[in-house]
């Protein structure tokens, strides 16, 4: 038995390393904790506050780990009249979906968890479109007015954001002439697609906030009227799980943005190893984009749901369609 395991690990070392360390589970856990810490610290500075300072000697870096442990030790309260199986299942499954999508993102030349040739970009969108369904299940299963309203708002927001973002990705796929994320990244060696696909990028960037459900489009969890939206009834480790899902979702969409528009792992040669170099550049781009995202989060008031849908259908979808037409014209002219 042991021999078999050693043999298996030796034969599949590359794949197992990717799944367990980078860009797999360890990276996701560490980066989620880093992203939350970074958000708290960065937003605190913009608010003239200090943010966490006490746990850990430097910049309160232990705070998030302490918070996670605290949440894990808390009681998990199952509401008496909730649909308990669905309540547990939807929350536990939530982080799996964006994590599965991240498995398709190339972090270096030929370095993704699943090196599928071919249709990875549509597959990524397909997996990510499952995410709102689990949010709706969470809101429904909690059997609570606030969570239910939050869940229905997710449906509306999905209509407003998912269609433009898919159309924007379609523009990139037409421009690149391929469905493959790896090939799309390789084609950006000379020029990032944010330049020829600028219209599409604008659509992507605005819809991105609807997809990650952060301000100005944190409509489903509108704190002021809905407590915490679909997440209201979750406590302890389950709450931690849903927050985890939230931030892995942010990570997945940001990684897709980098892959499609900002040259993925491409960057000046710093490390000799191309995979190490790619991972380095993708992390640098990730931090820069997260900083921009957090700056937007703090700069705007929350839109109302009808305003978000109007933005999506009146402005973003026509803009995305115009981008597709423009892309087709440019392609047929052979630019």
């Amino acid at each position, binding site marked *: 038995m042991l021999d078999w395991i050693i043999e298996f690990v030796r034969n599949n070392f590359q794949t197992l390393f990717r799944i367990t360390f980078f860009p797999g589970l360890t990276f996701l856990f560490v980066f989620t904790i880093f992203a939350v810490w970074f958000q708290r610290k960065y*937003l605190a500075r*913009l*608010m*003239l*506050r200090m943010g966490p300072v006490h746990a850990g000697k430097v910049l309160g870096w232990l705070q998030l780990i302490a918070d996670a442990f605290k949440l894990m030790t808390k009681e998990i309260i199952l509401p*008496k*009249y909730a649909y308990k199986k669905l309540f547990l299942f939807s929350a536990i499954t939530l982080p799996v979906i964006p994590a599965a999508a991240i498995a398709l993102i190339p972090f270096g030349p030929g370095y993704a968890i699943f090196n599928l040739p071919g249709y990875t970009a549509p597959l990524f969108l397909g997996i990510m479109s499952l995410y709102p369904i689990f949010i709706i299940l969470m809101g429904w299963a909690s*059997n*609570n*007015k*606030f969570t*239910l*309203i939050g869940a*229905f708002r997710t449906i509306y927001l999905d209509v407003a954001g998912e269609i433009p973002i898919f159309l924007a990705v379609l523009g990139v796929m037409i421009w690149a002439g391929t469905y493959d994320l790896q090939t799309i990244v390789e084609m950006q060696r000379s020029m990032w697609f944010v330049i020829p696909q600028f219209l599409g990028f604008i659509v992507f960037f605005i819809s991105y906030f609807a997809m990650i459900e952060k*301000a*100005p489009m*944190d*409509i489903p969890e*509108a*704190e*002021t*009227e809905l*407590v915490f939206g679909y997440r209201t009834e979750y406590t302890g480790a389950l709450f931690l799980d849903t927050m985890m899902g939230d931030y892995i979702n942010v990570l997945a969409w940001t990684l897709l943005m980098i892959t499609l528009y900002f040259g993925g792992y491409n960057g000046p040669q710093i490390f000799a190893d191309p995979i190490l170099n790619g991972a380095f550049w993708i992390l640098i781009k990730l931090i820069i984009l997260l900083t921009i995202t957090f700056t937007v*989060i*703090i*700069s*705007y*008031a*929350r*839109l*109302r*749901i*009808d*305003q978000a849908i109007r933005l999506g259908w009146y402005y973003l979808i026509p803009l995305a369609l115009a981008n597709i037409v423009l892309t087709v014209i440019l392609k047929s002219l052979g630019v």
Partner: protein
Amino acid sequence: MSHDMQRYLTDPFQEITELGEGLFRLNIGPQLPISGQGRFLVVTDGELVYDIEVDIGYSHRGIEKILEYKNYIQGVVPLERMVMLDTSNILMGFVRAVEDLYGVEPPPRAKYIRTIINELNRISSHLYALGLFAESAGWNPAVFIWTTADREPILDLLEMITGARWSHSFFIPGGVRADLPNGIKERILDTMDYIEKRLEVYEDAWIYNETFRLRTEGVGVLPRDKAIEWGAAGPSLRASGVAYDTRKNEPYSAYPELDFKIVTHTAGDSYARGWVRFEEMKVSIDLIRQAIENIPEGRVKKTLPPRPVKQEALARAETGRGEINFYIYTEGRDKPYRVKISPASFRNFFVIEQLPKIQEIKLADVPPLLYSFDPWFLDADR
């Protein structure tokens, strides 16, 4: 447990039968992040709001009754607890009523000191209100923390003058407790320059921000005639185009000698109410500058005579949330027989309850609508 009770517990939407097809009652508060020390019962179908019921009384402390057991100078201290942000303006009405009872006119220097402290308090109250208003429109707490931080220099000033940051108990019937400290004039003028600079930053950052206007413009429009009919108070009334301000219409303290205009807006929506507060802060800065330049020399307090000369008195003052009325009835002792307080928030809550009847309000509009009135449950509960 009866069968009906069982059914109610398993089905939170059982209320459908009593409210109508597809409607249910949403309980906003008293533990919701934005609700304050009270509760709003909102009848909604998930998106549109059909009725808002304000449930006050969670923080009733019987201040009117407490005042019957205290003499007029002791009464100042519990009375301030009505609105801790705006203590001196709340006190102003009471102090005026007592001075009317005893037939005492405070010395001119005391009047100017009162005006300065009133206006400093008004700025700090409006800053806090606007911060909450922005947060209720779905802003991250950034704006709220900025405005709270910018209250600090004002609170420091008040501490220098009165000895306390919040509850000064500085106004007493007959004047103020103490004279201004040395060197306060430069300090006040410096602080006013700082606040003015910060207000410019606010204009750029969020008062004229596009999303903020999208969320608040056209929300909860209070027409001029309805504002008068339902008795809206303070900035909420002035935002509907009614130029009524107690400081101008029934001037007290040093206001008759100072030059200022009443800020009004014609739109009557939530944004207008916030805007009126914002512009009033500029007026207050101007008033403080005028008052500190023209302040006369002399005494700051007079001693009250042993017995009141009148039996009853009615006085009003403009607080941050609107006009406050005090009616005092006395039987000739050093304590009031009855004090009746009519605070501004109480009247504004009535207006909030009426608003869904004349227009369409969405559920997401409820928090900005409420906070545009700057509701203060402690004020309404008394």
